[in-house]
């Protein structure tokens, strides 16, 4: 009886959480397939009477008359993917080994370094963008995915290190000692023991880094100029004219921009399972 009550309680909480997530998402999707005049109707048409997929068609298979933003949207999607995944891969690789060192090895300046790394992330990017712009033009990196990867790394890495450090910390030291007795060196321990256990942390950190890079707007706006480097948020912003805001286009852009991260998380989902840790501890 108690068990059934518990399941009912938990299920209704899940339902509540899903409602919290999906109400606005539903509205996002509805706005992307409604004409403006339908969006403006009172009472609101919760289900569009004449749904239109024109916004999606404009972006996915642009024709002569479609706007420049819609035409180039797919290219910017690709740029974003390139930038965000490069940043994620590099940040995870260097970030996790740095985090491991900072957590497990004892040496001087350890604390100072940890705080110092965090400190670089405190300055608002608004004030860093002009020096970075000058840096980019001087090195011929302006309007290239490379400059975005580099700058995003400078703020993704500190947080990646802190996040990974948090996950590494919760792993019992005994596990590692056992491995070292078996003859593994530091790197082998990290690779064979620590990484598999902290897979959930690694995946979450990866998601965090990916989405930070995916969502970043201001740097991308200033440091890129053409479709060879423009990212999705910058492209989406161009649905706003001087007065006109193409809300349908923007919402469609938002829906499409949300799909790649969701797919990625689905792929990596299986690594976020709790069984791994339990097995490792017992083994």
């Amino acid at each position: 009886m108690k068990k059934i009550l518990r399941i009912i309680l938990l299920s209704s909480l899940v339902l509540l959480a899903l409602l919290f997530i999906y109400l606005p998402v539903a509205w996002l999707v509805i706005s992307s397939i409604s004409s403006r005049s339908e969006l403006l109707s009172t009472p609101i048409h919760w289900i569009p009477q004449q749904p239109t997929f024109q916004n999606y068609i404009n972006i996915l298979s642009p024709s002569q008359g479609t706007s420049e933003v819609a035409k180039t949207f797919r290219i910017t999607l690709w740029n974003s993917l390139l930038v965000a995944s490069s940043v994620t891969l590099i940040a995870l690789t260097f970030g996790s080994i740095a985090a491991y060192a900072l957590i497990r090895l004892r040496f001087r300046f350890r604390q100072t370094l940890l705080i110092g790394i965090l400190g670089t992330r405190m300055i608002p990017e608004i004030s860093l963008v002009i020096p970075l712009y000058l840096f980019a033009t001087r090195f011929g990196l302006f309007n290239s995915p490379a400059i975005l990867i580099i700058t995003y790394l400078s703020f993704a890495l500190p947080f990646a290190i802190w996040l990974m450090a948090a996950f590494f910390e919760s792993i019992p030291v005994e596990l590692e000692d056992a491995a070292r007795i078996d003859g593994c060196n530091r790197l082998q321990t990290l690779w064979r023991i620590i990484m598999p256990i902290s897979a959930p942390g690694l995946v979450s950190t990866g998601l965090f880094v990916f989405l930070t890079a995916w969502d970043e707007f201001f740097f991308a706006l200033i440091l890129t100029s053409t479709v060879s480097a423009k990212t999705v948020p910058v492209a989406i912003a161009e649905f706003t004219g001087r007065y006109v805001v193409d809300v349908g286009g923007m919402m469609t852009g938002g829906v499409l921009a949300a799909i790649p991260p969701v797919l990625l998380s689905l792929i990596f989902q299986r690594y976020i399972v709790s069984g791994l840790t339990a097995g490792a501890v017992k083994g």
Partner: protein
Amino acid sequence: MKSIRSMLFALIAIVLIASIVGCQPKQAAGPATIRVLTMEQAGPTVDEMNAIVAEFNEANPDIKVEIEYVAYDALHDKITTAMASNPPAYDVFLADDIWYAEFAKSGYVLDVTDRISKDTHDKIFAAAWDITTVSGKAYGMPWLLDEMYFFYNEDLLKQAGFDTPPATWEELIAQAKVMKEKGIVEYPMVWSWGQYEAAICDWVVLLYGNGGSLVDDKGAPAFNNETGVKTLNWMVQTIDDGYTNPASVSYVEEDVRNVFSQGKAAFAVNWNYMYDLVNFNTEESQVTGKIKMSLIPAFEGSGVKSASINGSMGFSVAATSANPDAAWKYVEFLTSESIQNKYSAHLLPMWSTSFEGENLTKLQGYTPANAVTVPMFNEQFPFAHVRPKVPYYPEASKSLQLALQEALTKQKTPEQALNDAAAKWVELAK
């Protein structure tokens, strides 16, 4: 251990030196490349802009033109950042009316006064030159003429028993009163009084329509006098009385268009773009065919017939461009009489000759909306005012926006709010 530390420092030093010294950008050899920064929805479509470049290249094969489009909101930030490098990333850019004083003072825009022939100067609307002219010097060619217009929903007016649109704001209130009493519409007016530049534009329309002005002859703030306070009081009062939609305090132009498209408002002041979308586009509007335009009303006894705001833009050459002559050639071509007349489907030309004879017939014939907006433009443009050409305009505007908002949200009295803003303007002018 010591060696490791010194190695580390050496590495850091190398990175630092590398980032400080760097290499200088190379000068482009051969044909000059002109990089242009503009926005979409700034007149001609992207295809038309490309066609203009193709025509330009027929006469100037050695000048390559690369056009880049950004959102309006990003334009100012992109320009000011680009000017930090030398040569700048753009040779030609589109600038808004309100940035010209700032750009001229900062040395961002090339003084082209001597490059403009008398003939050109005379054939372009005088009010259009107000856009790019700062202290008597021209810093670019005007582009994309725009001003605010008065829109009304004829259907709602007829239901209330009125055949003609109001000529004064007092008359408008009288009509609004009847509409409210008959339950035709809850809030007859909707405005863009949010904390944006849009609020200043509406304020200019009302203030100048009351015989007031933002600054006096010497450039000192003049909006906090009796006329200014009276005008702002009128705004607050219309919200209190329910004649103005209270949400106006958070609205921009696009919200005004949306509410007007819903048929929830009978009167609105907005830019040229609204007419086509509201009156002809069933995808966008629920009130197609019911919308008319007329001269913006003024206040009774003000001695003013109408007042509007000039919201045009301009094309300028970057002062530090590596190829100023080639860049100017392109700007001249883009804004030339023949090109403007040829590609006027999506823009209002600034050549007064475009509004005569055959050109006018062509201009009016492009769209059903043009048939109405083009004559309306001619009627309203003489009443259009420019905002003060002061280099600190962005900051001045923000303080005035705040003042309007503080009065509209009842945090300060109109008098207090306007006095505070005026004090700020005086401080900025120092």
